[in-house]
């Protein structure tokens, strides 16, 4: 403190400085860094914007459509009646409804290296459709009144879990279904 008493220049520090005092030119190092920072941002932005040119098969799904929850419930129930715990033939569309606190199917069996079309939606609050297992992690939001449609093609056989990743109430941690991928 004593130090401050002796040395402080009233114009400085937390205290305001006159315009001439602070309005300095950028140093060479500062210029280099400003340019670098912008270049980094440009690299990041360009990569994400042009990524579809290199790899169009790992993208956030763009299909979504408003839907009446009652209509979707019907579709999900029909799907579940026919295919729960069963092998899904490659050309069959998969309908899964999320509801506090379960998915409309417990388990489905898929074929490896095959395109499957999924449609998911919620019948009540917001949920999250998260696939985990065998090094895979995919997260998608599941909204009420809105179907999310996406194509997925599993490249490894094994057991995958679908868990809920958006808090939906007390039973949120218990929501689980299984996707088994076979050759």
């Amino acid at each position, binding site marked *: 403190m004593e130090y401050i008493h002796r040395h402080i220049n009233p114009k400085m520090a937390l205290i305001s400085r006159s315009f001439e005092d602070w309005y*300095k030119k950028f140093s060479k190092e500062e210029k280099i860094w400003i340019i670098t920072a912008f270049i980094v941002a440009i690299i990041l932005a360009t990569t994400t914007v042009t990524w579809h040119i290199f790899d169009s098969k790992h993208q956030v799904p763009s299909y979504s459509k408003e839907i009446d929850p009652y209509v979707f419930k019907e579709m999900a129930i029909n799907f579940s009646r026919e295919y729960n715990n069963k092998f899904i033939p490659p050309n069959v569309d998969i309908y899964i409804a999320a509801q506090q606190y379960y998915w409309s199917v417990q388990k489905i069996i898929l074929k490896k290296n095959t395109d499957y079309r999924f449609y998911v939606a919620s019948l009540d609050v917001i949920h999250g459709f998260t696939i985990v297992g065998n090094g895979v992690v995919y997260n998608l939001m599941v909204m009420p009144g809105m179907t999310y449609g996406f194509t997925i093609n599993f490249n490894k056989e094994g057991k995958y879990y679908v868990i809920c990743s958006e808090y939906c109430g*007390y039973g949120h941690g218990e929501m689980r279904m299984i996707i088994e991928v076979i050759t």
Partner: protein
Amino acid sequence: MDLVKFKADNKTKQVIFANFLMALVSIVIGGIAAIFIAIGRSGISELFSLLNINHEYYYRWLTLHGMNMLIFWILWFEVALLYFTSTVILNQSIHGYKIALTSLTTMLYGQILVEYSILSGESDVLFTAYPPLAADNLFYAGYILFLLGTGVAVILFFVNIYKAKVNETYKGSLPLVTWGAAIAGIIAITAIFQGIIILTNTLAWKIGLISINPMTYRWFFWGLGHNAQYVNVVATIAVLYALIVLGTGFKTINFINERYAKLAFALVTLFVIPGIGHHILVDPGFSTILKQASGSVGSHFLSVPTMLHAFALLGALEATLRSSGHTSLLGWIRKIPWKNPAMATIVLVLISFGIGGITAQPLTTLQPNLNYHNTFWVPGHFHFMVAGGTTLAFMTLIYYMLPILISKRIYSIKLVTIQIYLFFLGILILGLSMIMLGYEGVPRRTLINSSLLPSWSISPLILVGGTLAITAGIMFVLNVLLTILLGKQGENIFEGFITNYDIKETSNVSKKGSLVVCFIVIVILLLIFFISFVRLTYMPSLY
């Protein structure tokens, strides 16, 4: 000009002190909640019955933690900071003392309503409160009141700056710290405005007057949450500029290019609004172009100002050390005064922001977000921002601000240094373990059986890091309370808090070392960014 004898009167100091005390109360409540959620997420189920942790209670504690830490602790302190930078630092007493008290009571009532409705068990909706999940009416009402009170304080802050300008209580331009606070204030207005609108609509929906679209809610809620987070980032950086000056007895001031720093602050306002989109990257119902432009590209540019500040702060530190004799390229790093609370904090916060900023890139980028959204990676990333960054910086500023406010010496200076390092270490372990778990796919906000996948076995590290950080938090609160109650009054209230430098030259001191350090960080950032794309290509195709 003497730091202790700033012209602000006692009323001004009381207002700042009162806001600051509420910040303290909030961090205590948030910290108590942290114990329960750290145990919950450690997966050590033997401990669950001991503390009565089940699904219901877990989410109640988590709601309490999120609200008290992110909203109450940080906003109370930021209001105190706004008053401090617009009165004490500008050499004036507060204008609108009564308005400040009104703001304070409004915030207080708001907070009480929220805490009550959470504890009553009617509002287990987490701080985001996404409808159609519904909380108690009081929860929304309290939330709105709290934001309203904060908004009044922000406006009062601008009024005070205006008064200072008119009354010429300071000469020249706005001090850098106040400038930073003003930028934070501008962003805060945009955040509070969107927050009040959407929460009022939600309350109306809850009562049954209107319907609400969950997607609209998410967009506007993050108009509050995202912008408020940039209030935190800007406020933290402003605090770091204050600390670097205070901790060196004002010696570093010559090495901060104020024009550069002020420009970097102003840049944030330009990029902050577009960034909102990174919260809805994997939501249905928003167009890919909006997500790409707003969430990803906007946010990438939002990283630029923070990068600029990092160099300015590190460079000022380097130049100070160099001009007092440590001239090798990186040799000055060893000479950083590690025991000086301000200097240690600056370095630790920069490291924390560095890790937070690097882990932010895969999150904010459209395609990799598929892998990280809503995983534990997210809280891992933001504990580096709000806990290891903002909270640490604020705690250290309190060690410097409190003596000015109550003219007393901090009770234990030794404890200050230990506390700072311990807190950082705790958050480091906590954050890194969350990031690793998130990489494996462990979801956030989920009390889940961690034996689901074998690789989730590092969960107990959450408790290890959590215990260290909470212990440090207790040290902080104790030290502050002891200072208020038993601190000694007297002349040398800053003893041990300032490192003296014998500056030999002030112009053209090299900052090359900092440039090298910053480049290394950039290389790591790009590496992790591209690795996250490579990882994506190994996943099953999804489109």
